[in-house]
């Protein structure tokens, strides 16, 4: 027998008795690691979502103010002796009075309104006018030159309050912050308080923000998005008119007809890389090719549209090719089988079935283009250009204009914080458009997309 000598070697320590119902330290540690890992993932996701909520609420919180505006209901006596001394009521004569001539009328009316509110003030009538926008005189003059019969009457005007007063009503400006402000003094605010109490100064919906043009640096209360919106519209029309046909045609060729060779491979790699070229490089391209070389006009929405067309083409081509690829080959085979040419099979059968996918891709590509800023800055579509509506429908393509994001950028750059509110408000307008476009894209996909 070869008994294994037990010797004096101590037997291995017996393993501790263990129940499988009880977890040991190592398993507990592993389970804790599991829980931790899972928590990290959840935390990362929640942080991401928190940023989204924070961003959105910060936009709404700061921007909604731009949609209301403080106005001053002022009864102005349009003295005949000032505006039309000879009593001719000839529009040409009345137009001769500059906005400066209306200043005295406004000061007199203001003094009256302040006296009527029963508040005592040491401010001179000339200083009182700081409560109103410096564009108030122009506002009155426009109305009078349009309707000369108003001269000699006392007319009630709804005048814009100055941006500081507007800020005070909205809580942005306080008495402390006015301490070293040349534009308005705390004494003005006492008057404003009294006038708010009797309803002369009130906040109302600010239609002019949605329809108006950009204003000079001195008058944030007059600045609006309207002209920039028109600029964006013309840019988008150009993009739609060019990018959709070119993109669809290129995708049809690459997906349906192109032979598999070096050349088509090169085109494909090219498109994939173009999709990732920084947008500012497209701006340089636009500047050098369209403006320097082809001498197209600067700041024209047409040029902006051309640049953004090139920028969106890769997106549209990629989406369209995916849509074409999703149409099952049996459709093509059936069409070819009954005698259609390849061209007929594509244009009569495959393309109609791919339309929902193409539309979705196009809308998303255009939404991307609508928010693009940097290339537009390089070709001169900067914000302050957007001061006038184009003269006619076709002029809109070439007359200098800006676009919504460039307008927002312009306001963000300005020194007066009153413009920041406009910038946030402009972003709300921009995001509403983006939301609508994405909504349409989702609806198109839900409604028309077919699963094979």
């Amino acid at each position, binding site marked *: 027998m070869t008994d294994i000598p037990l010797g004096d070697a101590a037997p291995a320590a017996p393993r501790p008795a263990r129940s499988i119902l009880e977890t040991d330290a190592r398993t507990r540690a592993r*389970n804790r*690691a*599991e829980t931790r*890992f*899972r928590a990290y*993932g*959840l935390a*990362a*996701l929640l942080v*991401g*979502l928190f*940023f*989204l909520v924070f*961003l959105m609420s*910060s936009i709404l919180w*700061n921007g909604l103010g731009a949609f209301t505006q403080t106005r001053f209901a002022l009864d102005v006596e349009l003295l005949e002796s000032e505006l039309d001394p000879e009593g001719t009521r000839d529009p040409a004569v009345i137009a001769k009075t500059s906005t400066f001539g209306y200043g005295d009328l406004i000061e007199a009316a203001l003094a009256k309104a302040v006296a009527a509110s029963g508040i005592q003030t040491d401010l001179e009538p000339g200083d009182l006018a700081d409560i109103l926008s410096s564009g108030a005189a122009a506002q009155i003059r426009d109305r009078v030159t349009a309707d000369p019969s108003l001269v000699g009457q006392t007319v009630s005007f709804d005048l814009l309050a100055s941006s500081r007063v507007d800020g005070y009503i909205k809580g942005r400006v306080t008495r402390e912050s006015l301490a070293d402000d040349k534009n308005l003094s705390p004494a003005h605010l006492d008057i404003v308080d009294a006038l708010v109490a009797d309803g002369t100064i009130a906040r109302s919906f600010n239609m002019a923000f949605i329809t108006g043009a950009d204003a000079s640096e001195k008058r944030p209360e007059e600045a609006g998005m309207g002209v920039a919106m028109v600029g964006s519209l013309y840019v988008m029309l150009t993009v739609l008119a060019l990018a959709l046909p070119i*993109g669809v*045609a*290129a995708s*049809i*060729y690459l997906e349906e*007809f*192109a032979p598999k060779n070096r050349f088509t491979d*090169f*085109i494909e790699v*090219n498109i*994939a*890389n*173009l999709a*990732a*070229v*920084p*947008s*500012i*490089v497209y701006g*340089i*391209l636009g*500047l*050098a*090719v369209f403006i320097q070389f082809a*001498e197209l006009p600067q700041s024209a929405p047409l040029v902006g549209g051309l640049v953004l067309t*090139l920028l969106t*083409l*890769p997106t549209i081509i990629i989406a369209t090719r995916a849509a074409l690829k999703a149409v099952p080959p049996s459709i093509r085979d059936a069409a070819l089988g009954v005698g259609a*040419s*390849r061209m007929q099979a594509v244009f009569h059968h495959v393309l109609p079935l791919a339309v929902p996918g193409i539309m979705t891709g196009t809308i998303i590509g255009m939404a*991307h283009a609508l*928010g693009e*800023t*940097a290339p537009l*800055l*390089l070709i*001169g579509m*900067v914000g302050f250009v957007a001061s006038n509506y184009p003269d006619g429908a076709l002029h809109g393509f070439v007359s200098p204009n800006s676009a919504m*994001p460039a307008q927002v*950028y312009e306001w*963000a750059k300005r020194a007066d914080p009153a413009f920041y509110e406009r910038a*946030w408000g402009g972003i709300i307008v*921009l*995001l509403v458009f983006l939301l609508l476009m994405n909504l349409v894209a989702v609806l198109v996909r839900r409604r028309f997309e077919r699963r094979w």
Partner: protein
Amino acid sequence: MPLGWLFLIVLLIAALGYAAGRRRALAGAGGSLRAMHSLPTAYGWNVAMAVLIPSLLVLAVWSLASPFVLDRTVAPMMAGQDGEIGLLMSDVRRVAEGLDLLGEDPASVSLEGLRERLAGAGVALGQDVSAATLAAAARYKELGARSALLQSVLVLAVALGMGAWAVRRTTPALRARNEVEWGIQGLLIAAALVAIATTIGIVLALIFNTIKFFQLYPASAFFFGTTWSPSFGGGSSLGILPLVWGTLYISLIALLVAVPLGLFSAVYLSEYASPRVRAWAKPMLEVLAGIPSIVYGLFALLTVGPALLAVFGSGGLGWMQGGTAVITAGLVMGIMLIPFVSSLSDDIINAVPQAMRDGSLGLGATQSETIRQVVLPAALPGIAGAILLAASRSIGETMIVVLGAGAAARLSLNPFDAMTTITAKIVSQLTGDQDFTSPEALVAFALGMTLFVVTLGLNILALWIVRRYREQYE
């Protein structure tokens, strides 16, 4: 003839050609479709395309080329004048255009007060009109009118000639469908070539202006210079290094924010989240990617910057001087990139075969051990590709850094300092009225070239990695 009218007339000729071609084919076959090679509409389209394609091509080429030819012909007249030839020629063009607006005959117009009258018609000039300018403008106008006339005649002749030729050769036996389809395929190929034309355009635009820049400014000083201080009066130093450093530093911070958050979100969404959570959390996160960068820029400038300043600024820790800093731009850019990293990584993690997970779980690994030791290593090349794409995105991002990073170009290690980037400087050198002969404006093209080369390299590398990785599991 205005171009619009010319275009409409060509369309009209095409429409007539369509009708004529269709009718001739039908008449030739005695009205019987069976005797014809193609459907009647194909014969019509065949004629219409024969009219449209060559005549519109002539129209486009002539419109693009005639300004250059005109400039070339008129430029010698201005050669003896002092001043830069490009500026002189733009004056000549403006005077010619203004004379049209004024309706004055260039032969008898008086130089006296011409500038004021032109200004009245909306044509602003930098200087008084000299006799030579007026003579050149008159010549320019005359040649321009002749060129327009010639263009109209040529385009109409081509349209009519091609139409007549196409109608004449229309017989029932003509393989009209095949010809039309060849034409359409040609158009499709032309559309696909636009993508290549864009690339060529980008490269040429960058190269020509970069070469011009390096003729004015030494390349070594550009690539190795450590100060960036452009002054439009001349004598500026245009070293790219501070800009490269600012770009890389901001991108680094952005990636430090975006990669962990994006990657963990992707892991959670693809491995842990219930389908319901996934169904709404993923699109919500992707909303962040759909928001335009100007919004992030404003967010950096007006929300994040002041918030960071309150903590790290003079009121708090005292590290930060202003709201615009590397950390502000980097943080916000990181937020923007989260969905970019997460959705790409999500796709890649989902592409890892389920069998690998099952194998690991079957051996007793916990889910997190499976993810860390099996799924992520398998997905690593793809994730690296995603991160490279995100890096290229952050290097090319413009609006966030323009608004959030500040304007000072400096080489510093402190993330609370304001720095600037390549893209921000391209914007600042090229917005407004520039003179494309000064190195201060041309430097933007050299910066653009650098940016293009770097991002293109990153993209090609990333796409190559992603593609290779996809093939591995297919």
